[in-house]
């Protein structure tokens, strides 16, 4: 009962803020269109270059163009979902802590992490989401994806947990700000590693592969789960790995965040 009540409350608060962000969208149409268009175009250009490359070579380390598009499209889903819901973590790293604005989250009887993330719904991320879905839809008939019930279920699970890999990495790096006052660039540095993860990791050398598999495990947000669906593999590793990495990062992230909150020093006023 209590849990149910809590979930209802979470949804209700999300709804209020999403509604408010949509309202803002109506108010600042140009701003939204530019934002979403920019993300759309960035992805578009990447895909355009992929097309050019593949018009000269038939396959890349054994991967066909459509397989690459599938992995690329898959990669965009967790990225976009995380972007939609937890974008406010960036501002923790850039200014909320250093300006002392974190105070307000501490005077509310909800978890600080929830209070921070619920406040912003980043609609621009819909641009990424749309590109991701389009890529998956167009490449799906040409890759060997078996649309069985279990596969669809595994697909949903892996997107969900992959999203929390993004969130976890942002959470850990944003928390650094509680000690250093600013960590925006730290978040940026780690977050950008996700660019490697959109392509088959087999095309990289061992160092890069080790980094994106074990240190900043973005490979588990795209290549490992996505390749399982189109070329097969060990589900315990490819999808189980995503679940484990995701749980690990979120746990570590929440612990560091909570430690950070007690170290928070506010700012003079």
């Amino acid at each position, binding site marked *: 009962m209590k849990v149910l009540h809590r979930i209802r409350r979470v949804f209700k608060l999300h709804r209020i*803020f999403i509604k408010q962000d949509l309202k803002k969208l109506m108010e600042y149409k140009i701003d939204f269109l530019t934002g979403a268009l920019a993300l759309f175009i960035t992805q578009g250009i990447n895909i355009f270059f992929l097309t050019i490359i593949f018009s000269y070579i038939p396959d890349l380390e054994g991967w066909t163009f459509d397989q690459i598009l599938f992995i690329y499209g898959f990669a965009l889903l967790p990225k976009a979902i995380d972007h939609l819901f937890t974008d406010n973590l960036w501002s923790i790293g850039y200014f909320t802590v250093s300006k002392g*604005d974190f105070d*307000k989250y*501490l*005077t509310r009887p909800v*978890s600080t992490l929830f209070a921070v993330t619920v406040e912003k719904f980043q609609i621009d991320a819909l641009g990424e989401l749309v590109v991701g879905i389009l890529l998956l839809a167009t490449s799906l008939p040409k890759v060997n994806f078996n649309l069985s019930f279990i596969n669809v279920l595994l697909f949903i699970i892996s997107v969900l947990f992959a999203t929390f890999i993004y969130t976890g990495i942002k959470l850990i790096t944003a928390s650094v700000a509680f000690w250093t006052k600013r960590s925006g660039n730290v978040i940026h540095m780690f977050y950008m590693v996700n660019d490697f993860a959109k392509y088959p990791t087999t095309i990289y050398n061992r160092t890069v592969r080790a980094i994106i598999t074990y240190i900043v495990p973005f490979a588990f947000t795209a290549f490992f789960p996505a390749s399982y669906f189109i070329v097969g593999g060990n589900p315990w590793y490819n999808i189980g790995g995503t679940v484990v990495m995701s749980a690990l990062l979120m746990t570590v992230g929440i612990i560091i965040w909570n430690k950070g909150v*007690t170290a*928070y*020093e506010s700012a003079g*006023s």
Partner: protein
Amino acid sequence: MIYVENLKKEFKKAIKEPGLKGSLKSFIKPKNEIITAVDDISFHVSKGEILGFIGPNGAGKSTVIKMLTGILTPTSGRCEINGKIPYKNRKSYVKEIGVVFGQRTQLWWDLALRETYTVLKEIYEVDDESYKKRMAFLNEVLELDSFITSPVRTLSLGQRMRADIAASLLHSPKVLFLDEPTIGLDVVVKDNIRKAVKAINAEENTTVILTTHDLQDVENLCDRIVMIDKGNKVFDGEISMLKTKYGQSREMKFVPEDLDAFNNLDYLGEFNLKDSDIEVENDGHTVSVRFNSDAVSVEKILNYTLSKTHVKDINVKDADIEEIIKGIYRSEVKLDA
């Protein structure tokens, strides 16, 4: 209700040397110094009391408030409010308090004010009926009606402060913390806010802790004041006590007919006074005599002056709380703690 014992807060601050070279040096080998913002503060507040918490800029007022509201974790010492320790049971603790920081709003910048209250209603789990009643009450004391549909960012400072205070009271807190609630406001709005605080205190017996630089706030609202300076408590008691204890300073102003006669007066010699007991200031039109009424009485000064000179006008000023506090801030008035 509120117990604060030996509360202390230290901050680590990096020492930065000037220039690029200095920056590089402190980057490679950072040096820290410890700054004690709050040294050793103890006091207690009973239920329903309005406590004025005052002190000069940088005295540590806000740091104390931030520890009491669960924002900062104390370095040592303890505070207990409603039987709870703020930084330990934060979530359940903040349900029972309201916090307003005059310097920055706690409301959501882009939300319409009405929606802000809906969000707070959800966060604090206020049921529909209490919410309705509460909004009606707050509307009455803070007059929110005229701007309740506007987004917070479009509100004037006075409206915003009223909105912030209403937001802090929505869940009927037992304790209300107001950190400079009248900063930057015009006299009418200030008066409104004081009335609202009084009404809430009277209606619900809400305990209020208020920091301010406006001594009108203190005289109007507070039963008691705690004064701190450099992280230490320097005074704790009723305002009247401050006056009787430290209000010996009097000021007398004369408008003389003949300025030269005044220059011949010798208060120091006549009453055998020390230099620190009396101060005479002559601006060519008015002569101000400030003196310690413990060392020499008003009557004596008046008699002596009138027996030697002729004056057109006399003005005697009573001990003014502002003067006393100014004296304490400048550490002219010695306090026996």
